[in-house]
């Protein structure tokens, strides 16, 4: 069981959260017409063995979307931040 330290609610089991995929990809602007940019955003993933930035939402809690940095080799979570502020 992953334990995620929600910056709002404290450490919680991962089954309170919803996984939201890779947070390292950059979403094109809403009106970006470039299919390549959207293709890369939707489909191209690095799948690293190591640190991975990923989105999790605390759905059974504060409902904030978070950026979690997790080591895919051992599930050690090194940082958790609000997605709103960590994007900038």
């Amino acid at each position, binding site marked *: *069981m*992953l*334990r995620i330290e929600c910056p709002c609610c404290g450490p919680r*089991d991962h089954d309170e959260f*919803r996984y*939201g995929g890779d*947070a390292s990809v950059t*979403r*094109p602007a*809403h*009106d*970006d*017409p*470039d*299919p390549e940019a*959207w*293709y890369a*955003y*939707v*489909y191209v993933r690095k799948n690293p063995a190591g640190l991975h930035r990923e*989105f999790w*939402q605390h*759905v059974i809690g504060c*409902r*904030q*979307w978070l950026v979690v940095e997790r080591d895919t080799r*051992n*599930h*050690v979570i090194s940082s958790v931040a*609000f*997605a*709103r502020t960590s*994007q*900038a």
Partner: protein
Amino acid sequence: MNAQNQRLPGGGRIDRSHPIEFSFDGRKLAGYRGDTLASALLANGVTLVGRSFKYHRPRGILSAGPEEPNALVTLGSGGRREPNLPATTLELGDGMVVETQNRWPSLAFDVQSLNGLFGPFLSAGFYYKTFMGPTRRAWMFYEHFIRKAAGLGRAGTDPDPARYEVRHAFADVAIIGSGPAGLSAARAAAAAGARVALIEQDFLLGGQLLAERSDGIAAAWLNEVEAELKGLETVTLMKRTSAFGVYDGNVLGLAAQREPLDTRSTGEARQTVTMLRAHSVVFATGAIERPMVFSNNDRPGVMLASAARTYLNRFAVLPGKKIIVAAANDAAWRTAFDLAEAGAEVTVADLRAAPPPALAAEAGRLGVAVRTATRIVDLRGGHAVRRATLSGPGGQSETACDLVCMSGGWSPTVHLTSHLGIKPRYRDDIDGFVPGIFPASWSGAGAMMGAYATADTIEDGHRAGIEAASFCGKSAPVSAPPKLDLGETVTAPLRDVPSAHRGKAFVDFQMDVTTKDIELAHREGYESVEHLKRYTTLGMGTDQGKTSNFAALAAMAGLRGATVPETGTTTFRPPFTPVAIGALAGRATGHHFKPFRRTPMHDWHQANGADMLEVGLWMRPWFYRQSGADVNEAYVAEMRTVRQAAGLMDISTLGKIDVQGPDAAIFLDRVYANGFAKLPVGRARYGVMLRDDGIVFDDGTTTRLAESRFFMTTSTAKAADVLSRLEFLLDTAWPDLRVAVTSVSDEWAAMSIAGPQSRAILAAEFPSLDVSDAALPHMGLLEGEWEGRALRILRLSYSGERAYELYVGATAGAQLWNRLLEAGDPFGLKPYGVEALGALRVEKGHVAGPEIDGRTTLDDLGLGRIAGKRSGFVGDVLRRRPALLAPARERLVGLECIEDGKRLRGGAILFLPGEKAHGHGRGRVTSVTFSPERGHYVGLALLAGDMAAEGNEVVAVYPMKAETVRARIVAPVFLDPQGERLHG
């Protein structure tokens, strides 16, 4: 009743004032409170306890703990029947009914023990090679018989009436194992200020200390430390609790057995699973003794040396009178000494040429015969050992015996530490595997780290306890632990080399894997330990090969001419000990398997003849019994009511989202494929959302309540996904937009009133509201109050009729529902269910879940026009990918059944007339209904675009019922294409 002939007159940790009766294969036997089933059987002289998995060989009791591979029994009967329980961990309870396993007709005479005679044929891979060879069909035929012949106990088939619990717990420091290391660690961690959970699988604390004399210095030490821990509020002692798994985030899976029947409080759960979250973990899991591998080493009467000592000192049972102790290390000699002191005639056969002189001197003092550089190579005796063949410097000789104690060394119990993928590492000096590198929050202590002398394990536990507490920020000063020196010598062990003299030499007792099987695996190229395991089934029993792992590695290493570390270990996975499935589920069974969501009108539906349907977690009325005898009759009647008078439908399950903020309109413009910025206040609009990849996500209506406030509805199924997606976009993609979204699904009860009489009914019920077409046109909104509660009336239609959606505060939902039915009664208003709802929308050609299936685009569904030439919304760019625009893509069509008396079925596969009905066809039927308007079945289908010309015929094939029916392709609207009905 049998006397307990093997029980000693005094000593042991049993309560002689509490005799216990139990039944073993129908025999009434007696033991004492404090016995395990195994110790009670041994006290009664019972040595034959089970039959083996494959060869049905007689088996006895090997160990005194959870590593037991042989003595597996079935407890209880009926729904409470539980198979494959190790007798060595089963706490004896009054009235226990125990059966042996895998034998027929009886344990002593088992027909299939003949398998042993055919043993040469039943080697690894035999079944597959023999029965799978020529055809797959052969295996299908034989498998049933093979599975019946091999195996362990049978589970009961009745529902299990027992109660199970799952609970959650927290601790600063969790300590697994309460041997000297674990006790010392618990003491230190608690003194340092940490909240401690001490986890012990046994019903007594003490671990290996329980194998020491019950009146000696070890017992005194144990009593002192146990009393100290019991006096601390910060220490939780969890006895009868097995740590079965270690999971990420220092979450431990613990399974607790309740006390046996005669002592437990009533109503206690049979097994309780605890998910324990700890800041740090101390592993003090000890070590498991290794059997030696020689011919017939599986005979009843062959026991691990430490187990014999446990039965003697803890349970006051002398398991033999003429005993051979086969040793490869110093520890086994202590068993020999204790057995000799208890009056047995003991011979030590040590593999080593020169055991420590101190041991030889003590042996001399106690009259223990010693033979060095000597090993057992064979045993005789069927249901009990009678003679052993020893091989030493003077050649081979036979010796009479009734018990063989063996010790091939020790394997640290590293299983739990490997659950998260930490590979054990080999240590030459102890010839065994210890855990790999731990994360900072873990410590190991005692025998599991390779420290075997008791004094060392206490020191080690003390250090680990301080470390673990300090990791949690607790570092109050800690006094030194009480000393305990048992005078053990620990000199280098000598590895037992497997031998097979005459007859089978078992490596894995439970799975009946012999040295020959390992040789065969090696010969056939299954050299990697992971392949070896799967080819021979070694270590795949309920004991997970706790006693067999090392011997198998050593055997394979020998065959490959490699070292043990080069050969490697297999991966240990949870559960360390078996856990009842019921315990993992806890109370989440039957009615509580998942939550049920009920609408505010639920009770009314139930009281008024609704057949309910599960839709996701929701319970919705499927149809009402008052409408017809079965669903097919009822839904058609309910459709007629809606088309001719009016129907009332509970739509409270729709997702409802309040969207607010200055940028709300811009936000909706981006998330919907169609535009919302220009939607006037007080008007609603149907909207479709796409995913980023251009596939349709969900649809619903959104109403503009005010300049910067919208009321969005989603489908019942996607309510949670849509809200989460909107939050995702606002949090991650467009944090600059000043918008907030909130679920208000549970705040509003919702109902839809549809049909030509619907306006008249509203006018009757809400005389103060103007529901005229001028005031409330199609897609209009009326806000008001009803009985002091907020009320929203939206004029929307799903069925194609004039229709209104009414939203009222949830607690007033049932009341409004009732009032509308009363007011509507003179107009013919009746409730209708989801079957009729679905049928009405099919007739009208609206898409829903079966069409919006995560694979279809706007164009596939004929909705391309709603996006028009817009851009900049979610999914816009990727929906234009060439493959998604291909003319041959399946797209939505209507189908009309053109064969009298036949019907269409959802899921039917479409073919061209005359085409062979084979494969995936040209498309599929997604939704169907009988159309009272048309007088036959109509449906919606997704059909290859190049075949989809209206007027053409297709054949709908439904292989499940062997049905074939002809249908005509038509426009996907079967009723009122001009929309005259919904306007009035």
